[in-house]
């Protein structure tokens, strides 16, 4: 297995290089020239040249690419072009608020969706199953923006159950006060697609021979569903959940904007709007690395869940 891990890690290098090249080419083709925005209301060509020189965007492309690669190796992406804040500082200060919302959300949506998927799959074809699927379809059809606006108005403003917006200084305060409504909204939005997806995974398993055999042997329905079926359905579920992990790094833009959460999602959008390449570079590279690492972990988890899986 160690040989497999080392081989996979080694294979990450060309993938990462591809990502770097893609980001570099895309930014230089479509990213816009930040100098004109940074120059302010009135600028002249000399000022624009001065800014371009300071940002290093006047350098030949191969030099800029070399600097990009050096930044990845040293994990130092410098400072934001628009705010002068160190990129590392941006990540360190903006990620925790995003994770305060997204980590509990990931756990809750996964376990609730799994539980509900097992339940509706067990009564497949029944009125309950059809009703739940219909609700899911309706829920899926509504934009998250509508959920945010309605929930913020009704539950935060009208009923006063939650603060309308804000962010505190301690994790506990944020988790129990400010993050609750955003988590609930995200949960309502994400449960429907996850439930539909996980239900199909469970249905694929529920008609297998081993389930009939287990029933014939007198195994209880709870054990059949939660142990036998779930274990076999878990590989696609793991794939799905693990693929969602890297997105934790890019936050939840709309929720962060509406609830004034100082998270990474707002920074990502601001960086794109401002052509703030250091921030874009850092986030893209870290998300790419996270995706590759998470994929490797998912493969290792397949092996742990199903010993028949061979790592080659």
């Amino acid at each position: 297995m160690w040989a497999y891990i080392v081989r996979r890690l080694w294979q990450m290098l060309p993938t990462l290089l591809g990502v770097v090249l893609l980001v570099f080419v895309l930014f230089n083709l479509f990213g816009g020239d930040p100098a004109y925005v940074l120059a302010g209301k009135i600028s002249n060509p000399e000022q624009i040249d001065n800014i371009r020189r300071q940002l290093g965007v006047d350098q030949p492309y191969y030099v800029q690419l070399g600097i990009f690669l050096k930044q990845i190796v040293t994990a130092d992406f410098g400072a934001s072009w628009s705010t002068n804040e160190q990129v590392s500082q941006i990540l360190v200060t903006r990620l925790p608020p995003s994770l305060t919302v997204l980590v509990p959300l990931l756990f809750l949506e996964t376990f609730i969706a799994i539980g509900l998927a097992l339940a509706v799959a067990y009564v497949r074809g029944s009125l309950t199953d059809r009703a739940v699927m219909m609700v899911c379809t309706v829920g899926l059809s509504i934009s998250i923006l509508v959920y945010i606006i309605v929930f913020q108005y009704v539950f935060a403003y009208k009923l006063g159950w939650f603060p309308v917006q804000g962010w505190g200084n301690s994790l506990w305060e944020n988790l129990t006060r400010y993050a609750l409504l955003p988590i609930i909204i995200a949960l309502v939005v994400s449960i429907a697609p996850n439930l539909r997806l996980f239900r199909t995974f469970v249905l694929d398993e529920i008609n297998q021979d081993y389930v009939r055999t287990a029933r014939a042997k007198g195994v209880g329905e709870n054990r059949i569903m939660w142990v036998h079926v779930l274990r076999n359905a878990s590989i696609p579920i793991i794939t799905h959940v693990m693929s969602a992990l890297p997105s934790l790094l890019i936050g939840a833009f709309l929720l962060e904007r509406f609830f004034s959460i100082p998270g990474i999602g707002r920074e990502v959008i601001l960086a794109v709007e401002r052509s703030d390449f250091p921030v874009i570079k850092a986030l893209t590279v870290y998300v790419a690395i996270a995706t590759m690492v998470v994929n490797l972990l998912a493969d290792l988890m397949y092996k742990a869940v199903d010993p028949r899986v061979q790592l080659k």
Partner: protein
Amino acid sequence: MKESSAGGCGTGGSLADDDPVTSRRAWRSRTLAFALWLCALATPAFGAADPAKVLRITFEVAESGFDPVRVSDNYSATVNEAIFERLLTYDYLARPARLAPMTAEAMPEVADGGRTYTFRLRRGIHFTPDPAFGGHPRELVAQDYVYTFMRFLDPKNRAPYAFLLEGKIEGLDKLAAAAKQSGRFDYDARLADLEAVDRYTLRIRLARPDFNFPYIVAHTSFGAVAREVIEAYSGQTDAHPVGTGAYQLKQWKRASKIVLEANPGYRGFTWDFTGNNGDAWDAALIDAMKGRSMPQIGRVEISIMEEFQSQWLAFRQQQIDLLNLPSTFRTDAFGHDDRLKPEFVDQRVSVYSFIAPEIIYAYFNMLDPLVGGFARDKIALRRAMILGYRLEEDINVIRRRMAVVAEMPVPVGVVGHDPAYRSINQRDPALANRLLDHFGYAKGKDGYRTTPDGKPLVVRYANSGSVVDREHGELWKKSMDAIGINLQVDVAPFGENLKAAKACKLMMWESAWGADYPDGDNFMQLLYGPNTGQSNNGCYQSAAFDAFYEKSRTLPDSPERNRLFLEMSRQMEVDGAWSLHLSRERRWLIRPWVRGFKRHPILHAEWQYMDIER
């Protein structure tokens, strides 16, 4: 406002000494001075602010940092305005805006017909304590302003407001050019035209007369900084604002929360503004505030709320005390008769409304082969487009009736604005059609017009794709369809559009300009030919306009100069250089415990003039 010395200890005269401490006498004098300074800090300053008086407000866009020279956004500038002090500021109530001394003892002495300005500083103003001062009190002196001015031209600072000083002071631009070569700005250079004559006297000699120079030194970015602080926090000056103003930065969670606390060493003043005759709002303010020792508000908490719904609900939940009402929520706050809804009247919410000193306009690229130039048919095409634009729909639908028509490039509240002036380009689609027919822009089979020589006429309107931009794109399209002009909306990032505009490569774009200082010059320069590639993004080059403009720059504020502003406005209209649209209305909803609020057209941070009475 009447200034006063801080506390009962007294701080008159210089506290810091330039001479080396070599004798016992000098040591004693320094010890005494330091003790006096500590005493001044420990004693509540005149009008000591009450920490329990907390003002909670919101910014709709995140700040970028607090180095005055490096900042270009209004939100950071607002905070800087409370922390850093300029030589001059504005009278809080006077309209149109009127300059008043800030750290200067009085208005500057002007000599050489507007070329030489001499400022005398108040004594005993101190920066807030900072480790960069090595534990010593640090008095504000004239050299601090010399240093502050120099920073604008230091290429390293990328100062967005460098244009306010460029080419104005002999030697300063040469220092900037040398710094570009050497990579280091020589702050120790002595400039004869930017000179600290003595510890408290600053003399500036301009390359040519500029009667607007006092406005320039009152700009927020000209707040005095201390060289020691800038050098101690080199590269991180955005995060270490140390000034002499009424407030100091207490807490900063970037893009989330900014907390300011009253500066305990601030000298304070008495609220004694006189207001404008017949202005009921002013009269009420004077009634409530006159004679109070200021500042009163001890703490200002600024939350960043980017979404209008969040701001609106936060105000309704009383999480914030003051709201610049987003136009989206006008109908939630005001009825059909435009009166505040009873729900808010019952809560004793008050409303302050004013027209922002800004213009929103669309400009044509005057160098473009299709829409540019001064040939009669080109002028007719542009003027027909201006006449055809449905401005009332812009104001009533897109701006939700929170805007007024801008008749001339100099907006309401700015020196040079004439309320009697009426644009010749009143909206009239029928007239636009007749004009196009007359000049041979015939309609083809598809209903769209062609050029007089029969070529396709496709006008390309640049757009950056934001919600308001999209709405404007649609309105332009609809308006032009009605007069048979095929207008296509090209969406590109703002920066790319700006780059193309400065290179005179955009056919048409919509833009906004807010006053940097309340003088018509700040707006008319947008049309001055030599400013092409800098601020004249329509690349308008009219000899007649330029002659009027150049003449206006030689004159102080006067009826003669105002007449020139009118001539320039008319010239621009006749040439059809801009489709001038509107100025936005700002409405503030104010909770009853907030006292003394009046939005200033140029200043951003009114907190030191306000009070909280719960």
